[in-house]
Structure formats: C-alpha cells, structure tokens
C-alpha cells in the first residue's frame, strides 16, 4: 500500500511537468513571433546602417579570449553620433532577440561593433557581448 504523500506526488509532479512543457512551448512561440527584423542600428534615437556606421567610425582591433576582433570603436562612435557628455550616461545594447545589456562608459569605451552587428568588449564576461545588435540606447 502506497503512502498518501506519494500518491500526492504522483499526481502533482506530472501536472507540474505538463505546465513546464506548456511554458516552454508558449515561450518558443512568443519568441519567434516577436523576433525583430531590422537592417539598421538605432543609436541615441537615430537609425544607421552598418555601412554608414563603418564609414563614420574608426576601425579598432581588440584582443578577446576568443582571439582578435575587428570593428568600429564604440567610444569614437558615440562622440560621432552626437552623444555629448559620454561618461554621464549608461548604454543599453539591445539585440533583435530581446537580449540586452547595460554598461557604463568605462566598459563601453573599450568595446567595438563588428560588421556583422556584434558588440565585443575585451576582458569582460561574454554575458556583456551582444550579437545581432539593433539598438544602443543612451540613458
């Protein structure tokens, strides 16, 4: 004869498992439905194509733990696009899948934006690297 506690678990655990599967399925549908397709990157409220950014930015090579990465330097870029007091703000880098990271100027100024739309920083956790960038919000 089974203990009542076990009977409870035998009912509750499969129900929880079903709920978890539904959460996973609905989240997957939501993510795919809300994927933002955008060819431009919005910086401080203005839209730029990657080509435009590379034409106004300064190329820099940085060393990361995944090797050398080449792109336009973010510190020069912020000044070029008209951010006045660069170290007065925080910068939120947003990706098309909803991923975003906020960094202050001391980190941002070390970073680059590559021609495939990925932001890298040297000597930081990869959590701060953002791919498929669609916006850099200055706030």
């Amino acid at each position, binding site marked *: 004869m089974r203990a009542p506690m076990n009977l409870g*678990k035998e009912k509750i655990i499969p129900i929880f498992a079903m709920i978890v599967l539904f959460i996973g399925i609905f989240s997957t549908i939501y993510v795919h439905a809300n994927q933002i397709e955008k060819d431009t990157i919005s910086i401080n409220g203005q839209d730029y194509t990657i080509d435009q950014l590379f034409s106004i930015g300064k190329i820099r090579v940085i060393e990361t733990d995944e090797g050398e990465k080449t792109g336009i330097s973010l510190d020069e870029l912020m000044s070029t696009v008209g951010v006045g007091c660069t170290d007065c703000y925080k910068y939120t880098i947003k990706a098309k899948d909803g991923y975003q990271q906020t960094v202050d100027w001391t980190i941002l100024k070390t970073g680059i934006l590559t021609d495939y739309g990925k932001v890298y920083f040297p000597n930081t956790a990869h959590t701060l690297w953002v791919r498929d960038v669609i916006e850099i919000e200055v706030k």
Partner: protein
Amino acid sequence: MKNLKLLAGILVFGSLWGFSECIIGSSINESGLPTGAIMTGFFAITFLVISRMTYRQPGMQLGMGLVAGALRLFNPFVGCHLCSALAIMAEGAIFEIIWYRISLDLKELKPITMQISMGILSSYFVYVGGYIITQIFTPIVSGSGFFIENLISFMPNILSSGLIASLIGAFILPAVLLTRKIDLRLKDRLYYPTTIGISAFCWLFVIGNWFLLS
C-alpha cells in the same frame, strides 16, 4: 571514513561533470547545437542522478556543482568562464532543492510517468535557474551592474531555451534510473585510487590544455 568516501564521491562526480562541460561542451558548441541545454539535459542530469542514486546523500550535488564550476573556470576551449561556472554552481543547488522532497531510495520514481516528469522538471528548472542566476550575477561580479529590465526583456528566450533541456531530461532520467540494477560500488581498496585517479585526470587534462593554449 564515510565522510571521506562522500568527499571523494563529490570530487569525482563534480570533476566528471566539469570535464564534460569543458571538453565535450566545446565540441557541441562548435557544431552550433544548443550547448547549454544539451549539457544540462544530458550530462548534468546524468551525473547528478547517478550520484544521488549511488550515495543517497543530500547536499552531495551542491558540492558537485561547486567542484564542476571550479573546473569550468579553467576551461580553455569555450569562453565565458565566469558565466558558465556560476551557472554550474547554481545548477547543483537547484537540483538539491527540486529533489529535496524525493526520498533517497527514489521509491516515488518507480512509475515511468514519474520518471519522465521528474526528468522534465529537473532539466528545465536546473537549466533555466542556472541561466537566470548567471544573467544576474555575472554582470554584478564583472562590475557592470545588474539591471532587472535586461533580464525581463530576455526572459521569454530563457524560458523557451529550457524546452530542449526538458525534453532531453524526459528521456535521460528514465535511462539513468535503469542503471539502478547495476552495482556501481567499488571494493574499498580500489575506491580511493579510482576516484582520485579519475578526478586528477579530469583536472590535469583541463588545466594542461589551458597552459598549452594560453
């Protein structure tokens, strides 16, 4: 003596888990497959459940997470050492919480529906929980600060990515429980040389590669 045996068990299973994260995880990552979900759903759940089944000792899996996370910090193959190490350490702790009310002889897990359900729940929450923990703590530890809006905006992706881990777990946990009938115990005179030897191999292999590649 029992505590020493348990410590050796934590060391060997934690080292095997860390080793698989470092070495096998890198190969999976290069192939473009969802590394995190596969590593958690397959390897983490396998080592965590086998150790639970063999040693029947709550708290052991927490220790395994700490050992595996520490080893992950030395991983030379895939970047983001800090994020992965934090995630692995959290995974051990989350597993302990999920399995807290499951008896040590696993008698509740006799029906196959319970095995599949626990596989789904364990893999999903271990993976999603580890993911969330690393998204919170990595920015804090690395000095950029944690911003809740960043986590909220990415939450649907995190919840979605746990689906693969949960489906793998649904198959892996029943498969691991099938091995209950195999006697994994070692004779006393072989226990320490084997556990320490395997652990040493895992650590030397990972650290040796770190030196070779750096």
